[in-house]
């Protein structure tokens, strides 16, 4: 059992970060290239890209804005450098500042466009990286940790090895006063009654059922056959037959802890404990939403093998089976397949995951961090995008 001494950076917002990145955030797709080049090869500086062009009347505008602002205000970010188009393009930067997070702003229009912005931006980012490097870690209460729970490329073993083991680790965090976020609403269809039964209040129970049924209704209204998306072809090859079966396995990531609340996409849990966040099952949208909602770290279980991570948060990858762990060794971190091999039990694997969380919080790198993954996605509930 590891020592439970965690360290992190305490931000002005009062939130704690376990990484200390400078994040370059483009406000608009037109700024993606410049943002990426500002961060390129610069130690301590990360960038993300997205395809949003703020074009006026957009039903998802609020959802997208709070995702961009929330991601940039995550306490793993020491300071955000928001790259806008003109000086009027400050809405996201202002939302970040309102949380108490540190933010600087640059407009491409002040530098003639991309190349000038890159030149100026690299100078600015370099100074910000120096500023960040001067900040020191302090002892961090575990109750300030928010853990994202994710599964992707699931197979039938996800619900048998990796997810229940993660559930044990998650329960331990919650017992110690921390927070875990269970998401992927489409992958709770068929398991929502089990989560509602553990809700801390009738109101929370109602919200659990409501959020899952709302997603289900949205799917029915589309009038589509969800098979092929849920379960996906890889899930089906791996033995998962229906969405319920997938969900019952997916819900195990949340362990047995009481469910303290339900939040919307990219909205921070209001209290501690196990929360459900309403996100799609799309791996990157989910990760983006959880990190925008305050998760500083995530554990991501996988059966078929997923190589993704996150630009500003460490993602610990746990294989459901030994075959994929060996096959994709450099994209993964832990092997829950060891349970079936007889080398671990569920409790010992749960403890191993928890110990790894502590190690990574305190600075140990994950495989996705070594690789420099920077997947990012905005999330839409409505299409097509209005002009």
């Amino acid at each position, binding site marked *: 059992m590891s020592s439970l001494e965690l360290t992190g950076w305490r931000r002005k917002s009062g939130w704690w970060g376990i990484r200390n990145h400078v994040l370059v955030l483009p406000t608009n797709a037109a700024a993606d290239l410049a943002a990426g080049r500002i961060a390129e090869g610069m130690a301590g500086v990360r960038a993300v890209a997205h395809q949003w062009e703020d074009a006026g009347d957009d039903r998802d505008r609020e959802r997208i804005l709070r995702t961009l602002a929330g991601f940039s205000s995550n306490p793993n970010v020491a300071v955000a450098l928001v790259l806008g188009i003109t000086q009027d393009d400050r809405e996201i930067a202002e939302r970040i500042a309102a949380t108490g997070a540190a933010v600087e702003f640059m407009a491409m229009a002040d530098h003639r466009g991309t190349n000038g912005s890159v030149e100026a931006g690299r100078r600015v980012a370099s100074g910000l990286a120096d500023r960040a490097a001067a900040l020191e870690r302090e002892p961090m209460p575990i109750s300030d940790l928010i853990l994202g729970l994710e599964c992707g490329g699931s*197979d*039938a*073993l996800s*619900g*048998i090895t990796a997810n229940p083991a993660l559930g044990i680790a998650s329960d331990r965090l919650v017992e110690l006063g921390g927070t875990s976020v269970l998401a992927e609403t489409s992958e709770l*269809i*068929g*398991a929502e009654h*089990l989560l509602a039964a553990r809700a801390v209040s009738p109101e929370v129970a109602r919200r659990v059922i409501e959020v899952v049924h709302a997603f*289900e209704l949205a*799917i*029915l209204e589309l009038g*589509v*056959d*969800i*098979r092929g998306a*849920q379960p996906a072809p890889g899930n*089906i090859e*791996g*033995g*998962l*037959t*229906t*969405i*319920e*079966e997938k969900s*019952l*396995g997916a819900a195990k990531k949340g362990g047995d802890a009481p469910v303290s609340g339900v939040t919307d996409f990219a909205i921070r849990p209001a209290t501690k404990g196990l929360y459900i966040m309403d996100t799609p099952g799309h791996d990157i949208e989910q990760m983006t939403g959880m990190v925008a909602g305050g998760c500083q770290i995530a554990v991501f279980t996988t*059966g078929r093998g997923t190589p993704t991570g996150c630009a500003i948060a460490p993602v610990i990858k746990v294989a459901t089976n030994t075959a994929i762990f060996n096959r994709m060794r450099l994209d993964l971190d832990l092997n829950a397949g060891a349970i*079936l*091999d*007889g080398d671990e039990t569920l409790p010992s694997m749960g403890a191993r995951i928890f110990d790894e969380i502590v190690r990574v919080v305190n600075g140990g790198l994950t495989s996705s961090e070594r690789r420099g993954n920077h997947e990012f996605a905005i999330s839409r509930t409505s299409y097509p995008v209005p002009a």
Partner: protein
Amino acid sequence: MNEAPKRPRFLLLNPKDNVAVAVSPLKSGEQIEIDSQHVTLANDIPAGHKFALREIGAGSDVIKYGEVIGKATSSIHSGEHAHVQNIVSARLPGPARTL
């Protein structure tokens, strides 16, 4: 001599279940003993896939993890491969699947 724990070849996840999960690929004809039930496999079962532990009538619930995971679209006999060809979601059925 202490034997290393053997890797299970199949798992029954809950006593209420009417399907079990193959952990390793299993061959048609193999005789399986689970929870004092005897099942003869009627098909090859790929790793991770399910086989029926007893007759599941068309339209009946398929139970795994002690919960309903779907409905049988046709009778599934004991030992048969139970998957997309004979199970459909009870929640989000799509257009009828033809084999």
